[in-house]
């Protein structure tokens, strides 16, 4: 049977001021790994808790396999969750921790044995089964928490920042493991993180959230290649995308001496926001490309490359543009450079709404939600 989780117009209001989830709709199918990605406090955990039934929605519905579970208690929803703190029972052994959910559901003990056996084989937990959580390392605890959800064979997996308590090296390792693990489950997975690398590497689809609003719901590569608005563009990708407000004249954006034709989607703006990722900005090779002159004021070594911050004198305040430049270009602080902006790598955004303006190279169906009110962060 195919499993499915749907959120319909889900809204949560804690009080007059705090509305961390604002009319979010989405659906996750069998074998899909959906990541809720957004800055801290944007409502990711609240969405997860609404799905789990730990919070009641103010309006909207949660559907599991087509059935409205909004009024059901958490125990009746057949979901399993990995908490950020793992929430392991400190007084129980690993085996008891893993078995606890099954025991509560009155699973026959033979069945419990086989399922635990499967999961311990799968995760290699054999040596840990008789220990208590206090005697485990962070990574081991995390595996036990995952094992506890896997044995349940639920209709939906929920994971709230399960890697945030691990150190960087271990995180990378466990990330890869999680991807394999949940890839085999054929069950909807909703994963919460504020870490874009996790979102990009793990997910089949990413839901970018800000301020309680769904900003974009797309495959990871699309989120990166065609960000739906300025917020997504700025949030995804590291180092952050450069944004320049440039004047327009007769459907051309003026960048230095080289006007760039605006995409078809644009009306006749007098100004437009140009976005370009640092990895796409390069040192100008000729006079025949759109480029701007500026002064280097900061050089950060990234190994093979330098991240160079350049101050460009515009009409008003000077703006900063960052570019990734190979270390073979021996740039010095205060030297003058000419930065080129290849037109095919430019993202265009509406100055007032921050929404993406489609370009010819965009895939035809950009399914970004229409609700993106004032997502522009300047």
């Amino acid at each position, binding site marked *: 049977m195919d499993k499915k989780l749907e959120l319909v117009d889900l809204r949560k209001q804690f009080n007059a001021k705090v509305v961390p989830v604002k009319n979010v709709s989405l659906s996750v199918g069998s074998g899909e790994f959906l990541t809720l990605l957004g800055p801290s406090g944007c409502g990711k955990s609240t969405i997860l808790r609404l799905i*789990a*039934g730990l919070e009641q929605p103010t309006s909207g519905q949660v559907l599991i396999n087509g059935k409205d579970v909004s009024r059901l*208690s958490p125990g009746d929803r057949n979901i399993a*969750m990995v908490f950020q703190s793992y*929430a392991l029972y400190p*007084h129980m052994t690993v085996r008891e921790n893993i078995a606890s*959910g099954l025991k*509560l559901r009155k699973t026959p003990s033979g069945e419990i044995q086989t399922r635990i056996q499967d999961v311990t084989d799968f995760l290699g937990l054999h040596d840990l089964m008789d220990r*208590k959580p206090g005697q485990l390392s962070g990574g081991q605890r995390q595996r036990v928490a995952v094992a506890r959800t896997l044995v349940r064979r639920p209709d939906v997996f929920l994971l709230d920042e399960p890697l945030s308590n691990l150190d960087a090296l271990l995180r990378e390792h466990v990330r890869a493991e999680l991807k394999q693990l949940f890839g085999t489950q054929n069950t909807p997975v909703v994963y919460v993180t504020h870490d874009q690398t996790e979102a990009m590497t793990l997910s089949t689809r990413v839901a970018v959230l800000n301020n309680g609003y769904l900003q974009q719901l797309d495959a990871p590569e699309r989120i990166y290649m065609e960000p739906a608005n300025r917020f997504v563009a700025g949030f995804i990708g590291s180092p952050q995308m450069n944004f320049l407000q440039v004047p327009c004249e007769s459907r051309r954006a003026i960048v230095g001496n080289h006007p760039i034709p605006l995409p078809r989607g644009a009306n006749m703006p007098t100004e437009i926001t140009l976005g370009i990722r640092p990895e796409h900005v390069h040192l100008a090779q000729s006079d025949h490309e759109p480029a701007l002159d500026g002064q280097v004021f900061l050089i950060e070594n990234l190994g093979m490359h330098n991240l160079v911050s350049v101050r460009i004198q515009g009409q008003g305040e000077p703006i900063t543009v960052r570019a990734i430049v190979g270390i073979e270009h021996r740039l010095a602080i205060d030297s003058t450079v000419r930065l080129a902006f290849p037109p095919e790598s430019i993202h265009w955004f509406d100055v007032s709404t921050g929404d993406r303006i489609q370009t010819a190279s965009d895939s035809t169906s950009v399914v970004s939600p229409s609700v993106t009110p004032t997502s522009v962060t300047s």
Partner: protein
Amino acid sequence: MVDYVRAQERRTGWFLTIPALLVLALVFAYPILRAFWQSFFTINLGNQLTPAFNGLGNYIRMAQDGRFWNTLWNTTIFTVATVSLELVLGMGIALVLNQSFKGRGIVRTIAILPWALPTALIALAWTWIFNDQYGVVNDLLLRLGLISTGINWLGDPTLAMISVIIADVWKTTPFISILLLAGLQSIPGDLYEAQAIDGASPWQSFRQVTLPLLLPQIVIALLFRLAQAFGIFDLISVMTGGGPGGGTETVSLYIYSTVMRYLDFGYGAALVVVTFLLLVLVVAIATFFLNRSRKRASGAV
């Protein structure tokens, strides 16, 4: 290699502990050892308080002393009844206070008031509450038509015991509940959320999470209360003076009478020694369980 720093620290440590050890020896070890010594002598009005060696005479007398066994029985009843009632009620109150509701701060403050009041005052108040002529208990029961004539609460051995137990429970339950509340607040909330997701009922969560994780606090409360209840003196002394007919006389009251009223110092000392050893035994057993439960709750075992 000799660890000079460690050795020096140890020396400083001893140096700093000596005053405390001296005080302990003076106020704790000396009286007990002296009582132990005195318990082998007859020192009473019969011999003008001149100590006369008596061997185990006092202890043999104790074994045959019906009043002693009666007080020991009373003490045990009082201890078991108050400690178990206080634990159950204290747990209930702690669970309620652990919920978030409007005015929780005020309710918490009010809840601890009975414990903050002096025992003698409370005992006096309860004496009046249980008074057969003017007491509020009888008044209420009469008004409700449950009884036709006032009950002489403090005049009947069984009722008097029930009365002092009620008074002690009223006074000490807040202490237990505050102690347990502190324990409850240290249990992470997401354990309960994990339970809820797994479909546990509140009672199952209480059994599987609250109780085992609260065990250290429960045992501490038990330890405190066992020791306190076993030595109960002030409350009963004021409310009934051990009466009627020795119906509420506890070991402490008996010791007090023996020494202060009958001036029988030798026998009193023997009583003290036996009570002391009994108490040490009870506390040792409780401590054993405390350590085990603590280790278990922290996941070390």
